[in-house]
């Protein structure tokens, strides 16, 4: 059908080669095993999807940034370049060092304006940085409708793993993501009268690459008693996750449910 071929070639001319692809040319989704077991298991593909957008969301203090930094630290040990896009200028390198991250491979982007945040995220996702973590505070999220839909496409071209961290999930972000996890704080962990961490419920709100709806719990311990890099080993793992312990259907889960 020459008309169809002409139409396809025109679309490719205007929108690029990737605009029209045969289904047989679509690659299967590859996982990046982050090593953070609850997250890997909830995705259904044993890792975060490469070339897709993953969203960590949750209101207030629920551990989403800790999980994001832990992913960043794990990524920095495996990948040549990991990038944090930090428009709110809140990145603390020592936290990442305490989590065992290789700071030589970590790059922080501090965009001066919300538009620049989108431009930076798109450029880096397109360039193929191994792991891109984008912090999306409300003021950036409000102006992100223009570039969020392109973010997953940009990541898809290079196979980057892109993780967005946001308090709310507005429609643009919800539509753009392939894997959305909602975190909810269950309780504070307190030792000697001081909060040392929290226990959070992790729920898969959306999953295009696996089965959605699963949930689990994880425990986040804040790096309080750490020594810093260059002065010896870190005394103990600072971010502990306990996967499987409280998964839905487990004995402990049933016991908790029965107890109300």
């Amino acid at each position: 059908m020459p008309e169809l071929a002409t139409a396809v070639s025109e679309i490719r001319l205007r929108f690029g080669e990737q605009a029209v692809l045969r289904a047989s040319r679509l690659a299967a989704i590859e996982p990046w095993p982050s090593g953070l077991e609850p997250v890997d298991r909830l995705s259904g593909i044993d890792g975060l999807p490469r070339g897709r957008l993953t969203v960590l969301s949750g209101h207030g203090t629920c551990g989403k940034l800790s999980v994001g930094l832990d992913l960043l630290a794990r990524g920095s040990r495996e990948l040549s370049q990991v990038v944090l896009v930090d428009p709110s200028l809140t990145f603390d390198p020592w936290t990442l060092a305490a989590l065992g991250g290789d700071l030589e491979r970590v790059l922080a982007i501090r965009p001066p304006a919300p538009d620049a945040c989108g431009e930076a995220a798109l450029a880096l996702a397109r360039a193929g940085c191994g792991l891109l973590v984008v912090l999306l505070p409300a003021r950036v999220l409000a102006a992100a409708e223009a570039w969020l839909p392109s973010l997953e496409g940009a990541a898809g071209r290079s196979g980057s793993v892109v993780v967005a961290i946001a308090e709310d999930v507005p429609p643009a972000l919800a539509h753009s993501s392939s894997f959305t996890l909602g975190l909810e704080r269950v309780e504070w962990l307190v030792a000697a009268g001081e909060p040392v961490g929290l226990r959070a419920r992790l729920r898969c709100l959306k999953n295009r690459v696996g089965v959605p709806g699963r949930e689990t719990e994880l425990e986040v311990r804040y790096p309080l008693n750490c020594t810093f890099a260059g002065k010896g080993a870190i005394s103990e793992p600072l971010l502990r996750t306990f996967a499987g312990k409280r998964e839905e259907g487990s004995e402990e889960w049933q016991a908790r449910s029965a107890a109300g």
Partner: protein
Amino acid sequence: MAGPICCGLTGHLELCLHPDFWGRPFLVGDWDGDVVAASPETAEFGVYPGIPVHHARKLCPQASIVDPDPPAAARLRKLAAIALYDLAPVVEPRADGTFLLDLEGAAQPSLVIRETRRRLREATGRDPQLGLAPGPFSARLAAARARAGRLLRVENAAQFLAPLSIAELDLDREALERLDLLGLRTLGDLARLGPRQLQSQIGRPGRLAARLARGEEPVGLEPWRPPAITAVHRQLEPPLEDREALLFVARALCDDLGRELGLRGAGARRVRVKLRLDAQHPPLRGGQGGAEEARESAVRQPLTTGPELFGLVGSWLRAWAPAAPITELAVELPQLEPAGRRQLRLWVGGDGSLEEVTAAVERLQERFGDEVAVRPRPFLVDSPVAAQRYRLDPA
């Protein structure tokens, strides 16, 4: 001679420019000049390149006459040469539609020949005749005797050349007549004579002719060197005011350039974007208006792909406020260099795209300042205040 040589014949490139006339008698040339190229259908009327056009008209009155377009033919030659450039170490494209490739060292010559056929067909629109022989002279003659889209392989050049006419040699008419009078009518006849004897009869060209006739192939290929600059442009009719449409066009142009860069293994160190503006239109923003606006920048990391180019060009266009609607968009790469890559650290994930990431970061820094990308460095490592133990330096 290195050899073996593969030759692809597509017909004169001036003829390739006019697919509407294929299959009919037509010739290319100025009305008051000589015939530059003639279609095969005119040969039976005695028309050949070099004769005056008015004489050709008398010989073949039904032939259509088309003005020559040397720039378009040169563009087509460049396009075909670029398409063949990565197939063989030495490629020689000629304006008469002869493309010669030295297959010395090619791991899979048959694959190269197949690709040559495909790419020439794509570039010129015509199925090439292909010849494979120990040298360029015999390869060209072999190709001329092959059917369109087929290959004629010559193992023994001297044996293949022996029965062919001396008219195949690039000799002037007077020398050919002299050889004919001497009874030397085939290349085999010339081969039996020594170069010195032939030189004594028709001068210096005779020496070369004798060696060619013997299959010695004394003339090598002239390697085509890709130009150190490249550019693409698109005329916009009607003039564009819509930024999104302009970005779509820019993306397509960048994809074209990226394909060419990939084929040539080159990277762009300098990028220039030109917008030609509608001179008839009053200035949009109360400015002076003008025929052309341009922006140019050098990049630290060579840009090698379409998305990389569009990353830079698109960011310019998004912030550009042209004074009038745009009638033409041009993207030029005035400085190219080999896009050689370092050896990858194969045990580190994603190391292959490190250069692209670095280039993207540098472009962000060019746009927003060095402080936009920072890397944590140890600072006061003994400080009791955790936040002082590291500082963020520009990457």
